[in-house]
C-alpha cells in the first residue's frame, strides 16, 4: 500500500512538472536568462511554479506535522541541522552551474526519461555518477574539514 501510494505521489509530482512546463529545459533556461529581460525572451514561469509549490507546502506541512506520526512510518524525518557551513554554499553553487548549463535539475531530468529522449538518459547517467562521487568523497575522513562526517544526504 505504501509503495503504491509513493508511486502515485511521484506521478503527481511528474504531472506537476509537465503542467508547469518545467519538464522543458528551454523554459528553465529562459527563466535563468536575466539578460533576456532587456533583450526579450525572459520567461518568469519558474517563479510561479515555486510560488505555487511553496504556498501549498507552507500550509500543508503545518497541517500534516500536527499528526503524531506519518501513515506508514514511525516518525517524521525532518532535517535537524541549522549551522551554515562551506558545503551549504559550495554544493548549491556547483549545482546551479550544472542547472544553468543544461536546464535540468533532478526532478525534471527523471521525468524527461519518460519522454524517451537520449539526452535525458545521458544527463541522468552523469547525474547519478556525480551523486555517487559526492557520497564516496563525503565519507573520506581527509575531507572532514569541508564535509561534515554525518549523513551526506540529510537535506
Amino acid at each position, binding site marked *: 500500500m505504501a509503495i503504491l501510494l509513493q508511486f502515485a505521489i511521484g506521478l503527481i*509530482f*511528474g*504531472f506537476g512538472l509537465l*503542467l508547469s512546463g518545467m519538464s522543458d529545459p528551454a523554459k528553465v533556461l529562459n527563466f535563468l536568462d536575466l539578460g533576456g529581460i532587456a533583450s526579450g525572451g525572459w520567461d518568469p514561469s*519558474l517563479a510561479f511554479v515555486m510560488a505555487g509549490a511553496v504556498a501549498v507546502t507552507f500550509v500543508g506541512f503545518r497541517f500534516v506535522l500536527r499528526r503524531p506520526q506519518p501513515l506508514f512510518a514511525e516518525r517524521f524525518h525532518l532535517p535537524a541541522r541549522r549551522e551554515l557551513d562551506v558545503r551549504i554554499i559550495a554544493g548549491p553553487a556547483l549545482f546551479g552551474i550544472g542547472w544553468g*548549463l543544461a536546464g*535540468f535539475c533532478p*526532478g525534471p531530468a527523471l521525468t524527461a526519461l519518460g519522454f524517451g529522449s537520449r539526452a535525458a538518459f545521458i544527463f541522468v547517467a552523469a547525474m547519478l555518477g556525480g551523486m555517487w*562521487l*559526492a557520497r564516496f568523497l563525503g565519507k573520506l575522513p581527509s575531507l572532514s574539514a569541508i564535509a561534515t562526517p554525518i549523513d551526506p544526504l540529510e537535506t
Partner: protein
Amino acid sequence: MTVTTFTPVASTIGGALIGLSAVMLMAVSGRIAGVSGIAARLLPPYEDDQFAGRLAFVAGLVAAPVLTLATRGQLPAQTIEAGTVTLVLAGLLVGFGSVWGNGCTSGHGVCGLSRLSLRALVATLTFMATGFATVFIARHWS
C-alpha cells in the same frame, strides 16, 4: 535559444501539484520530497529500508509523461539544446552539487523554504545566483 511562452496560470497550478505531492509524501512516509536525495539513495550504500518506496516515487516521475502520451496522445514541448559533452558535465555538477549541498530545487527550494529553513534559503539563493551567472555567460558573454 528557443523562445518559450510565459505561462503564469499553468505554472502556478503545476507548482501547486508539486507542493501537494510533497505534502502527501510527508503524510505517508514522513520524509522531505527532495528528488536529489531520493535519487541518490537509490545508489549503494543503503542506510535504511526505504529503497522500494523511493524507486516507486521515481517510477511515478518517469511514468507521468508515459501516461500523458497514452491518454492524451501528445506531450508538452521539450527542447534540449545541450550537446553530449555539456549534458555529461551538467549532470555531474547537478548530481555532485545536490548531494554535497544536501538538496536541490525541490528539497531546498520548495520543502526547505516553506519550512523557513535558513540553510535552504542560503542554498536556494546560491544555486539561483550561479544558475543566473552561468546562463548569462553562455548567452551574453561574447
